């Protein structure tokens, strides 16, 4: 453990409180002040004002916003995320927790695949520097990254399900082969960023004296690459892993929507369209907490792995 680590974690966690407070206020007021109203989706386009008033009273939307906010926060601090206006018999946590679990598992599988591909491509490109294979590798992944997923999805669905008739398109859980396509589309676009990062990192390490020493003492190239170069070059990847964590659990809205996956991304789309105030708030806060936690984790991991980094010094 690096010295001062515990104090540092406490300070970061304390700082997270005002950040989350600010986010909750902004989003709460934005939702309440915007012209959209859950009553519209509950009652349709035409409704009698008395009906609307009853519903607003039931959910407390008729009260001043700051009172609604205080009430919401009081419940939140007791672990109550509120109620959904779309699924009236469920609480918000009952709705979102199973969906988070689905998205998180999918995202984790995709993350592992994209890191595997990205690291391989990055090391390969760096070692091939000076030949046409270096720009070719990176450009290939950049090209993949440039295809919007909502273009790739119908094309691949057509190719694999209609033309080749290999798999079905409906979501049938994690054991069905139908999962291959969503996993592929989740993992491939992220590979370019990782490959580029690994390439730059490897090129940096290759200039180091200890690599020259390793080569000079006649170690086989395989050992130089894997033990001396790769090990040191992959360390900064922690940042990228950390930064992609919120995306992993946050799900992909478009992919889940187009494949009918019951995850958090599809849920957030429906909640936003309704609008389902408490669900949107819960999802935004969930996303923000993930982001904050991921950032703290990155810093802590850095401190443990590289003792030269003094925590807190880089942030004024």
């Amino acid at each position: 453990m690096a010295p001062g680590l515990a104090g540092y974690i406490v300070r970061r966690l304390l700082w997270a409180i005002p950040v989350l407070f600010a986010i909750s206020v902004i989003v709460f007021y934005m939702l309440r002040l915007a012209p959209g109203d859950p009553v519209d989706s509950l009652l349709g386009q035409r409704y009698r004002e008395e009906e609307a008033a009853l519903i607003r009273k039931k959910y407390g939307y008729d009260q001043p916003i700051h009172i609604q906010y205080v009430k919401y926060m009081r419940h939140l601090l007791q672990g109550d995320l509120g109620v959904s206006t779309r699924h009236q018999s469920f609480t918000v946590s009952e709705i979102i927790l199973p969906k988070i679990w689905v998205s998180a598992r999918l995202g984790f599988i995709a993350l592992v695949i994209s890191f595997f591909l990205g690291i391989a491509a990055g090391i390969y490109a760096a070692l091939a520097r000076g030949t046409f294979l270096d720009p070719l590798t990176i450009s290939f992944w950049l090209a993949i990254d440039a295809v919007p997923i909502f273009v790739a999805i119908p094309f691949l669905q057509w190719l694999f399900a209609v033309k080749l008739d290999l798999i079905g398109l409906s979501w049938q859980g994690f054991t069905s082969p139908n999962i291959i396509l969503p996993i592929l589309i989740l993992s491939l676009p992220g590979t370019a960023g990782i490959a580029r990062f690994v390439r730059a990192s490897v090129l940096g390490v290759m200039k180091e004296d200890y690599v020259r020493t390793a080569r000079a003492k006649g170690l086989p190239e395989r050992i130089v690459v894997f033990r001396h170069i790769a090990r040191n070059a992959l360390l900064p990847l922690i940042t990228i892993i950390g930064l992609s964590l919120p995306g992993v659990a946050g799900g992909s809205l478009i992919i889940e929507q187009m494949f009918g996956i019951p995850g958090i991304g599809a849920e957030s789309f429906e909640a936003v369209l309704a609008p389902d105030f408490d669900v949107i708030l819960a999802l935004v806060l969930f996303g923000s907490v993930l982001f904050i936690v991921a950032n703290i984790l990155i810093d802590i991991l850095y401190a443990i792995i590289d003792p030269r980094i003094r925590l807190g010094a880089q942030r004024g």
Partner: protein
Amino acid sequence: MSAAVAADPVSLERAAASPRRRFFRQLARKKLAMLAIIYLAIFYACGIFAPLIAPHDPYEQNLTPGATRQGPSSEHWLGTDALGRDLASRVIYAARTTVVFTVVVLVSGSLVLGLGLGLLAGYRGGWVDTLIMRVGEVLAGLPTLLLMLAITAAFRTRINDVAFWLQDNTFLGGDARTLVKFSIIVFATVPFAWIGTSRIVRSQALAIREETYVLAAEAMGASTWRIITRHILPGVLPLFVVGVSAGMAGTAGAEVTLSFLGLGIDPPTASFGSLIAAGAGPQTFERYPHLLLAPAIPVTLFFFAWNLLGDALVDLLEPRTQALR
């Protein structure tokens, strides 16, 4: 430098070649980056001169049997859509939407907010710096797409009221609705577009602030405005350009994604998002592949070109960024 070298006019010129000229020469040597620049130039020209280039009226429908969803022909280069509108013209007008959107976000988000706040934070430091960076931190922590959706969806329900009001009470007429939708997407994108840029600019400005020439200018009593524009800005600009070009695909992608989901620019105004949405679906693709391919290929190349350009610029400026860190 020896007298012999200085006397030689050719090498004298070479020695005097500015870093900027050297930069462009190196860039010109990167073939992929040059291809990307050429493609982007064509794309932006298409967008700007869309009314001159488009072979047909992108809004003119033709619902007679056989006229809808035609494949490519000499009359309609890319075929027609479900309402019999010329797809090539619609794609060119979609490029116009993308061009206008990227320029608006570039100016308001990257240039004014990103560069401005970054310079201010980096040069002034103190509580100004803390405030700007903390606000950025809060915004960066928000799930962006979700919030963009929330903002656009929140205003969507009452959008017709505003549009009709503008139509009746201002000179905008029929363009009012497009303008309102456009402003909403810009309003949903810009709060998140400046953070990355201003971080880059700030760290750069922090380093330059300590340079002797800045200290000298301060000692001579130059105003803050003058120091920022004359001394800090030129040093910050290269990295700013890199940051912007690397982020451009993402910016343009935000509009395309929102339009695809039906929350951005909606028909009849052409946008790559809504054009793709009309052709998306494995069954549709099986029968009418041109509906998806016609908008998908140009916009994918557009993202790819920005990615390639950003990558090449990062590569070129790498030694300098490392030296400054």
